[in-house]
Protein backbone atom coordinates (compact mmCIF):
# COMPACT_ATOMS: atom_id res chain seq x y z
CA UNK A 1 0.00 0.00 0.00
CA UNK A 2 1.28 3.43 -1.00
CA UNK A 3 -0.18 6.53 0.55
CA UNK A 4 0.60 10.06 -0.62
CA UNK A 5 -0.54 12.86 1.64
CA UNK A 6 -0.47 16.44 0.43
CA UNK A 7 2.65 15.71 -1.60
CA UNK A 8 4.17 18.85 -3.09
CA UNK A 9 7.41 19.41 -5.00
CA UNK A 10 8.69 22.72 -6.24
CA UNK A 11 11.78 23.16 -8.43
CA UNK A 12 12.51 26.85 -8.28
CA UNK A 13 9.38 28.42 -9.74
CA UNK A 14 8.01 25.21 -11.27
CA UNK A 15 5.46 23.40 -9.17
CA UNK A 16 5.99 19.85 -10.40
CA UNK A 17 3.65 18.20 -7.89
CA UNK A 18 0.93 20.15 -6.16
CA UNK A 19 -0.71 18.97 -2.94
CA UNK A 20 -1.22 15.47 -4.28
CA UNK A 21 -2.99 12.85 -2.16
CA UNK A 22 -3.85 9.34 -3.29
CA UNK A 23 -3.59 5.73 -2.20
CA UNK A 24 -2.49 2.68 -4.13
CA UNK A 25 -4.04 -0.59 -2.98
CA UNK A 26 -2.44 -4.04 -3.03
CA UNK A 27 -3.62 -6.79 -5.35
CA UNK A 28 -4.35 -4.62 -8.35
CA UNK A 29 -2.52 -2.72 -11.01
CA UNK A 30 -2.97 1.00 -10.45
CA UNK A 31 -2.33 3.24 -13.42
CA UNK A 32 -0.69 6.59 -12.75
CA UNK A 33 -1.86 8.68 -15.60
CA UNK A 34 -1.02 12.17 -16.76
CA UNK A 35 0.23 13.99 -19.82
CA UNK A 36 3.93 14.83 -20.28
CA UNK A 37 5.21 17.01 -17.50
CA UNK A 38 2.29 16.21 -15.19
CA UNK A 39 4.64 15.19 -12.39
CA UNK A 40 4.47 11.38 -12.56
CA UNK A 41 8.21 10.77 -12.48
CA UNK A 42 8.71 13.40 -9.81
CA UNK A 43 6.08 11.72 -7.64
CA UNK A 44 7.74 8.35 -8.12
CA UNK A 45 11.14 9.77 -7.18
CA UNK A 46 9.57 11.13 -4.01
CA UNK A 47 8.00 7.76 -3.23
CA UNK A 48 11.53 6.29 -3.40
CA UNK A 49 13.07 8.99 -1.23
CA UNK A 50 15.24 10.21 -4.11
CA UNK A 51 13.69 13.67 -4.22
CA UNK A 52 12.70 15.42 -1.03
CA UNK A 53 9.10 16.69 -1.00
CA UNK A 54 8.77 20.45 -0.52
CA UNK A 55 5.87 19.55 1.74
CA UNK A 56 3.63 16.60 2.43
CA UNK A 57 4.77 13.01 2.63
CA UNK A 58 4.40 9.63 1.05
CA UNK A 59 4.29 6.40 3.03
CA UNK A 60 4.81 2.77 2.13
CA UNK A 61 2.89 0.52 4.47
CA UNK A 62 2.88 3.40 6.92
CA UNK A 63 6.59 4.26 6.72
CA UNK A 64 8.58 6.75 4.66
CA UNK A 65 10.83 4.95 2.17
CA UNK A 66 13.99 6.20 3.86
CA UNK A 67 13.05 4.37 7.04
CA UNK A 68 12.69 0.99 5.38
CA UNK A 69 15.32 -1.53 6.33
CA UNK A 70 16.92 -3.02 3.18
CA UNK A 71 14.26 -1.35 1.04
CA UNK A 72 14.70 -3.46 -2.10
CA UNK A 73 12.99 -6.24 -0.15
CA UNK A 74 9.88 -4.07 0.23
CA UNK A 75 9.81 -1.84 -2.83
CA UNK A 76 11.05 -2.63 -6.31
CA UNK A 77 11.14 0.11 -8.89
CA UNK A 78 11.98 0.71 -12.50
CA UNK A 79 12.08 4.45 -13.04
CA UNK A 80 14.55 4.55 -15.90
CA UNK A 81 15.99 1.54 -17.69
CA UNK A 82 19.09 3.57 -18.50
CA UNK A 83 20.22 3.77 -14.87
CA UNK A 84 22.89 1.16 -15.52
CA UNK A 85 26.58 1.64 -16.17
CA UNK A 86 26.92 0.81 -19.89
CA UNK A 87 30.23 -1.00 -19.45
CA UNK A 88 29.00 -3.21 -16.66
CA UNK A 89 27.49 -6.59 -17.47
CA UNK A 90 23.85 -7.24 -16.64
CA UNK A 91 25.01 -9.80 -14.13
CA UNK A 92 27.43 -7.42 -12.39
CA UNK A 93 24.73 -4.74 -12.23
CA UNK A 94 22.35 -7.10 -10.46
CA UNK A 95 25.16 -8.49 -8.31
CA UNK A 96 25.91 -5.22 -6.62
CA UNK A 97 22.24 -4.38 -6.20
CA UNK A 98 21.56 -7.77 -4.61
CA UNK A 99 24.57 -7.53 -2.34
CA UNK A 100 23.57 -4.09 -1.10
CA UNK A 101 20.39 -5.53 0.35
CA UNK A 102 21.84 -8.83 1.54
CA UNK A 103 20.20 -10.89 -1.21
CA UNK A 104 21.91 -14.11 -2.28
CA UNK A 105 23.61 -14.50 -5.66
CA UNK A 106 21.12 -17.27 -6.40
CA UNK A 107 18.38 -14.66 -6.51
CA UNK A 108 20.24 -12.86 -9.32
CA UNK A 109 20.08 -16.03 -11.41
CA UNK A 110 16.38 -16.37 -10.64
CA UNK A 111 15.41 -12.88 -11.76
CA UNK A 112 17.62 -13.10 -14.85
CA UNK A 113 15.73 -16.24 -15.73
CA UNK A 114 12.38 -14.65 -14.94
CA UNK A 115 12.92 -11.84 -17.45
CA UNK A 116 14.67 -14.06 -19.97
CA UNK A 117 18.12 -12.48 -19.86
CA UNK A 118 20.13 -15.49 -18.65
CA UNK A 119 21.87 -15.95 -21.99
CA UNK A 120 23.07 -12.37 -22.25
CA UNK A 121 23.85 -11.84 -18.57
CA UNK A 122 27.58 -11.51 -19.22
CA UNK A 123 27.20 -8.94 -21.97
CA UNK A 124 27.69 -5.26 -21.27
CA UNK A 125 24.41 -3.54 -20.55
CA UNK A 126 25.30 -0.61 -22.81
CA UNK A 127 24.83 -2.86 -25.84
CA UNK A 128 21.31 -3.92 -24.89
CA UNK A 129 18.27 -3.07 -26.98
CA UNK A 130 15.56 -0.99 -25.34
CA UNK A 131 13.48 -4.10 -24.67
CA UNK A 132 16.42 -5.88 -23.06
CA UNK A 133 17.28 -2.83 -20.94
CA UNK A 134 13.69 -2.71 -19.80
CA UNK A 135 13.86 -6.37 -18.83
CA UNK A 136 17.08 -5.77 -16.94
CA UNK A 137 15.39 -2.93 -15.08
CA UNK A 138 12.49 -5.19 -14.21
CA UNK A 139 14.90 -7.86 -13.02
CA UNK A 140 16.43 -5.26 -10.70
CA UNK A 141 13.01 -4.29 -9.40
CA UNK A 142 12.14 -7.91 -8.67
CA UNK A 143 15.41 -8.77 -6.90
CA UNK A 144 14.10 -8.39 -3.37
CA UNK A 145 10.79 -10.11 -4.13
CA UNK A 146 9.11 -6.85 -3.06
CA UNK A 147 5.43 -6.45 -2.29
CA UNK A 148 5.31 -2.95 -3.74
CA UNK A 149 6.36 -2.25 -7.33
CA UNK A 150 6.72 1.01 -9.23
CA UNK A 151 7.18 1.27 -12.97
CA UNK A 152 7.62 4.58 -14.77
CA UNK A 153 6.40 4.35 -18.36
CA UNK A 154 7.63 0.78 -18.72
CA UNK A 155 6.23 0.25 -22.22
CA UNK A 156 7.58 3.46 -23.73
CA UNK A 157 9.27 2.63 -26.99
CA UNK A 158 8.64 -1.11 -26.84
CA UNK A 159 7.28 -3.17 -29.71
CA UNK A 160 3.82 -4.77 -29.39
CA UNK A 161 5.29 -8.05 -28.18
CA UNK A 162 7.29 -6.29 -25.47
CA UNK A 163 4.26 -4.25 -24.45
CA UNK A 164 2.14 -7.37 -24.12
CA UNK A 165 4.83 -9.11 -22.11
CA UNK A 166 5.12 -6.23 -19.65
CA UNK A 167 1.36 -5.82 -19.39
CA UNK A 168 0.83 -9.46 -18.52
CA UNK A 169 3.81 -9.41 -16.23
CA UNK A 170 2.42 -6.54 -14.18
CA UNK A 171 -1.01 -8.11 -14.00
CA UNK A 172 0.65 -11.31 -12.80
CA UNK A 173 2.46 -9.40 -10.06
CA UNK A 174 -0.78 -7.80 -8.91
CA UNK A 175 -2.56 -11.15 -8.95
CA UNK A 176 0.05 -12.36 -6.47
CA UNK A 177 -1.24 -9.70 -4.11
CA UNK A 178 1.42 -7.07 -4.73
CA UNK A 179 0.88 -3.34 -4.96
CA UNK A 180 1.69 -2.25 -8.51
CA UNK A 181 1.84 1.38 -9.61
CA UNK A 182 2.47 1.99 -13.31
CA UNK A 183 2.72 5.40 -14.89
CA UNK A 184 1.78 6.22 -18.43
CA UNK A 185 0.62 9.12 -20.53
CA UNK A 186 -1.63 6.87 -22.62
CA UNK A 187 -5.09 6.15 -21.29
CA UNK A 188 -5.67 3.52 -23.95
CA UNK A 189 -2.68 1.61 -22.62
CA UNK A 190 -3.79 1.99 -19.02
CA UNK A 191 -7.32 0.90 -19.86
CA UNK A 192 -5.86 -2.45 -20.89
CA UNK A 193 -3.44 -2.78 -17.98
CA UNK A 194 -4.78 -1.08 -14.89
CA UNK A 195 -7.90 -1.71 -12.86
CA UNK A 196 -7.50 1.50 -10.84
CA UNK A 197 -6.44 4.91 -12.03
CA UNK A 198 -4.81 7.86 -10.34
CA UNK A 199 -5.03 10.69 -12.85
CA UNK A 200 -2.99 13.86 -12.49
CA UNK A 201 -2.52 16.99 -14.56
CA UNK A 202 -0.03 19.79 -13.93
CA UNK A 203 0.89 18.20 -10.62
CA UNK A 204 -2.64 18.12 -9.25
CA UNK A 205 -4.91 15.15 -8.62
CA UNK A 206 -7.71 15.02 -11.18
CA UNK A 207 -9.32 11.80 -10.13
CA UNK A 208 -8.82 8.54 -8.36
CA UNK A 209 -11.22 5.75 -9.23
CA UNK A 210 -11.48 2.43 -10.98
CA UNK A 211 -10.58 2.50 -14.64
CA UNK A 212 -14.14 1.63 -15.67
CA UNK A 213 -15.61 4.45 -13.61
CA UNK A 214 -13.11 6.91 -14.98
CA UNK A 215 -13.79 5.95 -18.55
CA UNK A 216 -17.56 6.10 -18.12
CA UNK A 217 -17.62 9.33 -16.22
CA UNK A 218 -15.32 11.15 -18.54
CA UNK A 219 -16.92 10.07 -21.81
CA UNK A 220 -20.55 10.71 -20.88
CA UNK A 221 -21.36 13.96 -22.55
CA UNK A 222 -19.44 13.95 -25.78
CA UNK A 223 -21.15 14.71 -29.05
CA UNK A 224 -19.68 14.35 -32.49
CA UNK A 225 -20.93 16.83 -35.01
CA UNK A 226 -20.05 17.45 -38.64
CA UNK A 227 -21.07 20.58 -40.45
CA UNK A 228 -19.96 22.56 -43.50
CA UNK A 229 -19.96 25.56 -41.14
CA UNK A 230 -17.87 23.92 -38.46
CA UNK A 231 -15.96 27.13 -37.72
CA UNK A 232 -19.07 29.12 -37.00
CA UNK A 233 -20.69 26.35 -34.98
CA UNK A 234 -17.51 25.74 -33.01
CA UNK A 235 -17.27 29.38 -32.01
CA UNK A 236 -20.88 29.43 -30.88
CA UNK A 237 -20.47 26.31 -28.80
CA UNK A 238 -17.38 27.74 -27.15
CA UNK A 239 -19.36 30.90 -26.36
CA UNK A 240 -21.94 28.73 -24.61
CA UNK A 241 -19.17 27.31 -22.43
CA UNK A 242 -18.72 23.90 -24.02
CA UNK A 243 -15.35 22.41 -24.84
CA UNK A 244 -14.91 21.83 -28.54
CA UNK A 245 -12.13 20.01 -30.32
CA UNK A 246 -11.68 19.65 -34.03
CA UNK A 247 -10.74 16.18 -35.25
CA UNK A 248 -8.57 15.39 -38.23
CA UNK A 249 -11.58 14.72 -40.45
CA UNK A 250 -12.99 18.16 -39.67
CA UNK A 251 -15.63 16.84 -37.30
CA UNK A 252 -16.09 18.57 -33.95
CA UNK A 253 -16.19 16.77 -30.65
CA UNK A 254 -18.23 18.70 -28.12
CA UNK A 255 -17.87 17.74 -24.50
CA UNK A 256 -20.17 18.76 -21.71
CA UNK A 257 -23.14 19.00 -24.07
CA UNK A 258 -25.97 16.65 -25.10
CA UNK A 259 -26.82 16.10 -28.76
CA UNK A 260 -30.11 17.93 -28.13
CA UNK A 261 -28.29 21.05 -26.98
CA UNK A 262 -25.92 20.99 -29.94
CA UNK A 263 -28.81 20.43 -32.37
CA UNK A 264 -30.78 23.33 -30.89
CA UNK A 265 -27.86 25.70 -31.05
CA UNK A 266 -27.17 24.74 -34.66
CA UNK A 267 -30.82 25.18 -35.65
CA UNK A 268 -31.09 28.58 -33.94
CA UNK A 269 -28.23 29.86 -36.12
CA UNK A 270 -29.37 28.05 -39.23
CA UNK A 271 -26.22 25.94 -39.38
CA UNK A 272 -26.54 22.82 -41.51
CA UNK A 273 -25.50 19.59 -39.82
CA UNK A 274 -24.25 16.52 -41.68
CA UNK A 275 -23.82 14.42 -38.59
CA UNK A 276 -24.87 14.64 -34.98
CA UNK A 277 -24.09 11.67 -32.80
CA UNK A 278 -23.67 11.17 -29.07
CA UNK A 279 -20.34 9.49 -28.35
CA UNK A 280 -19.03 6.95 -25.99
CA UNK A 281 -16.02 9.09 -26.71
CA UNK A 282 -12.57 7.83 -27.27
CA UNK A 283 -10.51 7.32 -24.19
CA UNK A 284 -7.80 9.67 -25.31
CA UNK A 285 -10.25 12.48 -25.91
CA UNK A 286 -11.78 12.05 -22.50
CA UNK A 287 -8.36 12.00 -20.98
CA UNK A 288 -7.14 15.07 -22.78
CA UNK A 289 -10.25 16.94 -21.82
CA UNK A 290 -9.81 16.02 -18.18
CA UNK A 291 -6.16 16.84 -17.94
CA UNK A 292 -6.67 20.18 -19.61
CA UNK A 293 -4.06 19.30 -22.17
CA UNK A 294 -6.43 19.37 -25.09
CA UNK A 295 -6.03 21.79 -27.92
CA UNK A 296 -9.08 23.86 -27.29
CA UNK A 297 -11.08 25.40 -30.07
CA UNK A 298 -10.62 29.07 -29.45
CA UNK A 299 -13.15 31.61 -30.70
CA UNK A 300 -10.32 33.86 -31.85
CA UNK A 301 -9.05 31.20 -34.24
CA UNK A 302 -12.38 30.78 -35.98
CA UNK A 303 -12.48 34.08 -37.78
CA UNK A 304 -10.06 33.02 -40.56
Amino acid at each position, binding site marked *: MIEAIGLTKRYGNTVAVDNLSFTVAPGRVTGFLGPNGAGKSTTMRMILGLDRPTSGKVLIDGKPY*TQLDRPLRTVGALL*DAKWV*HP*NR*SARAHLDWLAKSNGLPGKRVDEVLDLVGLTKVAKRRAGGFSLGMSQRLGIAGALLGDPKVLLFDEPVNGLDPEGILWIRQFMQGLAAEGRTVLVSSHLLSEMALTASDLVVIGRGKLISQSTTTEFVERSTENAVRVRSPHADKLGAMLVDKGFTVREGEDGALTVTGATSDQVGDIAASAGVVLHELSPQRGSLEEAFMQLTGDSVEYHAAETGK
Partner: protein
Amino acid sequence: MTLLAVERIKLFTTRSPWWCMVLALGLSIGFTAIIAANSTEGAMPVVASAFTHQFGLMVIMVMAALAITTEYRFGTIKATFQAVPDRISPLVAKGVVVALLSAVVGLLVGFGSWGLSWLIVSDRSQLALESANDWRHVLGVSLVFAAGSLLALGVGTLVRQTAGAVSIILVFALLVENLVTLIPKIGDDIQKWLPFTVANKFVLGEADSSGLPEGAGPPVPGELSPWGSLAYFTAIALAFFVVSLVVAKRRDA
Protein backbone atom coordinates in the same frame (compact mmCIF):
# COMPACT_ATOMS: atom_id res chain seq x y z
CA MET B 1 31.14 -4.65 5.31
CA THR B 2 28.60 -5.60 2.64
CA LEU B 3 28.63 -2.03 1.39
CA LEU B 4 32.40 -2.24 0.95
CA ALA B 5 31.86 -5.32 -1.20
CA VAL B 6 29.17 -3.46 -3.17
CA GLU B 7 31.47 -0.54 -3.90
CA ARG B 8 34.29 -2.92 -4.75
CA ILE B 9 32.07 -4.69 -7.31
CA LYS B 10 31.00 -1.35 -8.76
CA LEU B 11 34.55 -0.06 -9.07
CA PHE B 12 36.12 -3.15 -10.60
CA THR B 13 33.34 -4.03 -13.02
CA THR B 14 33.98 -0.92 -15.11
CA ARG B 15 37.06 -0.16 -17.11
CA SER B 16 38.12 3.34 -16.19
CA PRO B 17 39.66 2.44 -12.78
CA TRP B 18 41.89 -0.13 -14.48
CA TRP B 19 43.02 2.36 -17.09
CA CYS B 20 43.71 4.95 -14.44
CA MET B 21 45.71 2.53 -12.31
CA VAL B 22 47.85 1.46 -15.26
CA LEU B 23 48.35 5.08 -16.28
CA ALA B 24 49.25 6.19 -12.75
CA LEU B 25 51.84 3.45 -12.45
CA GLY B 26 53.17 3.92 -15.95
CA LEU B 27 53.54 7.71 -15.75
CA SER B 28 55.16 7.84 -12.34
CA ILE B 29 57.45 4.85 -12.69
CA GLY B 30 58.22 5.57 -16.33
CA PHE B 31 59.36 9.12 -15.71
CA THR B 32 61.35 7.99 -12.69
CA ALA B 33 63.13 5.55 -14.98
CA ILE B 34 64.10 8.46 -17.22
CA ILE B 35 65.38 10.43 -14.23
CA ALA B 36 67.34 7.40 -13.04
CA ALA B 37 68.80 6.76 -16.47
CA ASN B 38 69.94 10.37 -16.68
CA SER B 39 71.35 10.63 -13.18
CA THR B 40 74.95 10.42 -14.24
CA GLU B 41 76.19 13.36 -12.14
CA GLY B 42 76.70 11.92 -8.68
CA ALA B 43 74.63 9.28 -6.89
CA MET B 44 70.82 9.40 -7.21
CA PRO B 45 69.21 10.11 -3.81
CA VAL B 46 66.05 8.31 -2.60
CA VAL B 47 64.02 11.51 -2.80
CA ALA B 48 64.68 11.73 -6.55
CA SER B 49 62.77 8.51 -7.09
CA ALA B 50 59.65 10.20 -5.66
CA PHE B 51 59.74 13.37 -7.81
CA THR B 52 57.26 11.95 -10.31
CA HIS B 53 54.66 10.78 -7.82
CA GLN B 54 52.62 13.87 -8.66
CA PHE B 55 51.79 12.47 -12.12
CA GLY B 56 50.34 9.40 -10.47
CA LEU B 57 48.53 11.53 -7.91
CA MET B 58 46.74 13.48 -10.65
CA VAL B 59 45.65 10.29 -12.40
CA ILE B 60 44.51 8.69 -9.15
CA MET B 61 42.45 11.75 -8.35
CA VAL B 62 40.85 11.53 -11.78
CA MET B 63 40.04 7.89 -11.02
CA ALA B 64 38.46 8.84 -7.69
CA ALA B 65 36.43 11.64 -9.23
CA LEU B 66 35.25 9.29 -11.99
CA ALA B 67 34.18 6.73 -9.41
CA ILE B 68 31.41 9.08 -8.32
CA THR B 69 30.76 11.29 -11.35
CA THR B 70 30.06 8.27 -13.58
CA GLU B 71 27.45 7.21 -11.04
CA TYR B 72 25.73 10.54 -11.52
CA ARG B 73 26.26 10.40 -15.27
CA PHE B 74 24.62 7.00 -15.66
CA GLY B 75 22.03 7.30 -12.88
CA THR B 76 23.44 4.42 -10.86
CA ILE B 77 23.69 6.80 -7.93
CA LYS B 78 19.89 6.79 -7.86
CA ALA B 79 19.87 3.00 -7.82
CA THR B 80 22.43 3.16 -5.02
CA PHE B 81 20.39 5.56 -2.90
CA GLN B 82 17.30 3.52 -3.63
CA ALA B 83 19.06 0.44 -2.28
CA VAL B 84 20.60 2.26 0.70
CA PRO B 85 18.51 5.35 1.39
CA ASP B 86 20.63 6.76 4.22
CA ARG B 87 23.11 7.77 1.45
CA ILE B 88 25.97 8.38 3.88
CA SER B 89 26.95 4.74 4.34
CA PRO B 90 27.33 3.86 0.64
CA LEU B 91 29.30 7.07 0.06
CA VAL B 92 31.57 6.37 3.02
CA ALA B 93 32.02 2.81 1.75
CA LYS B 94 33.01 4.20 -1.62
CA GLY B 95 35.47 6.53 0.11
CA VAL B 96 37.05 3.61 1.97
CA VAL B 97 37.33 1.44 -1.15
CA VAL B 98 38.70 4.22 -3.34
CA ALA B 99 41.17 5.39 -0.67
CA LEU B 100 42.43 1.85 -0.04
CA LEU B 101 42.87 1.23 -3.74
CA SER B 102 44.68 4.53 -4.13
CA ALA B 103 46.93 3.64 -1.20
CA VAL B 104 47.82 0.36 -2.87
CA VAL B 105 48.57 2.11 -6.15
CA GLY B 106 50.64 4.65 -4.18
CA LEU B 107 52.58 1.82 -2.60
CA LEU B 108 53.29 0.36 -6.01
CA VAL B 109 54.28 3.76 -7.36
CA GLY B 110 56.56 4.46 -4.40
CA PHE B 111 58.30 1.12 -4.33
CA GLY B 112 58.14 0.66 -8.08
CA SER B 113 59.85 4.00 -8.73
CA TRP B 114 62.46 3.37 -6.09
CA GLY B 115 63.03 -0.26 -7.17
CA LEU B 116 63.38 0.59 -10.82
CA SER B 117 65.85 3.36 -9.96
CA TRP B 118 67.82 0.81 -7.94
CA LEU B 119 68.01 -1.42 -11.00
CA ILE B 120 68.93 1.38 -13.37
CA VAL B 121 71.48 3.59 -11.61
CA SER B 122 75.14 2.64 -11.48
CA ASP B 123 75.90 4.45 -8.22
CA ARG B 124 73.47 3.19 -5.55
CA SER B 125 75.32 4.75 -2.64
CA GLN B 126 72.55 7.29 -1.89
CA LEU B 127 69.60 5.05 -2.81
CA ALA B 128 69.54 2.69 0.17
CA LEU B 129 66.52 3.11 2.46
CA GLU B 130 68.34 4.02 5.63
CA SER B 131 66.70 6.93 7.40
CA ALA B 132 63.09 7.63 8.39
CA ASN B 133 63.12 10.37 5.76
CA ASP B 134 64.12 7.88 3.06
CA TRP B 135 61.19 5.66 4.00
CA ARG B 136 58.86 8.65 3.98
CA HIS B 137 59.86 9.51 0.40
CA VAL B 138 58.91 6.00 -0.70
CA LEU B 139 55.94 5.10 1.52
CA GLY B 140 54.56 8.63 1.79
CA VAL B 141 53.33 8.41 -1.79
CA SER B 142 50.77 5.87 -0.66
CA LEU B 143 49.36 8.14 2.07
CA VAL B 144 49.17 11.15 -0.21
CA PHE B 145 47.38 9.11 -2.88
CA ALA B 146 44.81 7.93 -0.33
CA ALA B 147 44.14 11.44 0.98
CA GLY B 148 44.13 12.91 -2.53
CA SER B 149 41.57 10.35 -3.68
CA LEU B 150 39.21 11.39 -0.87
CA LEU B 151 39.63 15.03 -1.85
CA ALA B 152 38.79 14.17 -5.47
CA LEU B 153 35.84 12.03 -4.42
CA GLY B 154 34.52 14.96 -2.41
CA VAL B 155 34.88 17.36 -5.33
CA GLY B 156 33.29 14.80 -7.68
CA THR B 157 30.31 14.34 -5.37
CA LEU B 158 29.82 18.08 -5.07
CA VAL B 159 30.15 18.83 -8.78
CA ARG B 160 28.50 15.60 -10.09
CA GLN B 161 29.94 16.03 -13.61
CA THR B 162 33.08 14.34 -14.83
CA ALA B 163 34.34 17.21 -16.96
CA GLY B 164 33.71 19.77 -14.24
CA ALA B 165 35.25 17.77 -11.43
CA VAL B 166 38.32 16.71 -13.39
CA SER B 167 39.03 20.21 -14.66
CA ILE B 168 38.62 21.75 -11.22
CA ILE B 169 41.08 19.27 -9.75
CA LEU B 170 43.67 19.42 -12.50
CA VAL B 171 43.50 23.15 -13.08
CA PHE B 172 43.84 23.81 -9.39
CA ALA B 173 46.63 21.35 -8.75
CA LEU B 174 48.66 21.97 -11.89
CA LEU B 175 47.99 25.62 -12.70
CA VAL B 176 46.58 27.60 -9.81
CA GLU B 177 49.03 26.33 -7.23
CA ASN B 178 51.97 27.21 -9.46
CA LEU B 179 50.71 30.45 -10.95
CA VAL B 180 49.71 31.86 -7.59
CA THR B 181 53.35 32.81 -7.05
CA LEU B 182 52.88 35.43 -9.77
CA ILE B 183 50.85 37.50 -7.33
CA PRO B 184 53.27 40.15 -6.08
CA LYS B 185 54.46 39.98 -2.47
CA ILE B 186 51.90 37.56 -1.01
CA GLY B 187 51.96 34.94 -3.81
CA ASP B 188 54.70 32.82 -2.29
CA ASP B 189 53.07 32.93 1.14
CA ILE B 190 49.73 31.83 -0.25
CA GLN B 191 51.33 28.99 -2.17
CA LYS B 192 52.89 27.56 0.96
CA TRP B 193 49.43 26.81 2.32
CA LEU B 194 47.80 25.38 -0.78
CA PRO B 195 46.97 21.69 -0.44
CA PHE B 196 49.02 20.09 -3.19
CA THR B 197 52.09 22.16 -2.39
CA VAL B 198 51.79 21.02 1.20
CA ALA B 199 51.26 17.38 0.15
CA ASN B 200 54.41 17.66 -1.95
CA LYS B 201 56.31 18.85 1.08
CA PHE B 202 55.29 15.70 2.94
CA VAL B 203 56.64 13.35 0.28
CA LEU B 204 59.70 15.30 -0.86
CA GLY B 205 60.51 17.69 1.97
CA GLU B 206 63.55 17.63 4.27
CA ALA B 207 65.46 15.09 2.29
CA ASP B 208 68.66 14.24 4.10
CA SER B 209 70.69 12.94 1.22
CA SER B 210 73.42 15.03 -0.29
CA GLY B 211 73.61 13.31 -3.62
CA LEU B 212 71.88 16.09 -5.53
CA PRO B 213 73.56 19.32 -6.35
CA GLU B 214 72.03 22.22 -4.41
CA GLY B 215 68.78 23.40 -5.97
CA ALA B 216 68.27 20.42 -8.26
CA GLY B 217 64.85 18.80 -8.51
CA PRO B 218 61.53 20.47 -7.79
CA PRO B 219 61.44 23.14 -5.07
CA VAL B 220 59.70 22.12 -1.86
CA PRO B 221 58.10 25.16 -0.25
CA GLY B 222 56.10 24.85 2.95
CA GLU B 223 56.04 25.98 6.56
CA LEU B 224 54.94 22.75 8.26
CA SER B 225 57.06 19.75 9.07
CA PRO B 226 56.60 16.83 6.65
CA TRP B 227 54.21 14.99 8.95
CA GLY B 228 52.43 18.21 9.82
CA SER B 229 52.04 18.70 6.08
CA LEU B 230 50.40 15.30 5.73
CA ALA B 231 48.00 16.12 8.58
CA TYR B 232 47.16 19.43 6.92
CA PHE B 233 46.54 17.86 3.49
CA THR B 234 44.49 15.02 4.97
CA ALA B 235 42.40 17.47 6.97
CA ILE B 236 41.58 19.42 3.82
CA ALA B 237 40.74 16.22 1.95
CA LEU B 238 38.51 14.98 4.77
CA ALA B 239 36.82 18.36 5.00
CA PHE B 240 35.88 18.20 1.31
CA PHE B 241 34.73 14.62 1.67
CA VAL B 242 32.57 15.32 4.73
CA VAL B 243 31.02 18.42 3.17
CA SER B 244 30.20 16.37 0.07
CA LEU B 245 28.46 13.77 2.27
CA VAL B 246 26.33 16.43 3.93
CA VAL B 247 25.42 17.99 0.58
CA ALA B 248 24.61 14.62 -1.03
CA LYS B 249 22.41 13.74 1.92
CA ARG B 250 20.45 16.97 1.69
CA ARG B 251 19.91 17.52 -2.00
CA ASP B 252 17.76 15.57 -4.47
CA ALA B 253 19.57 12.53 -5.81
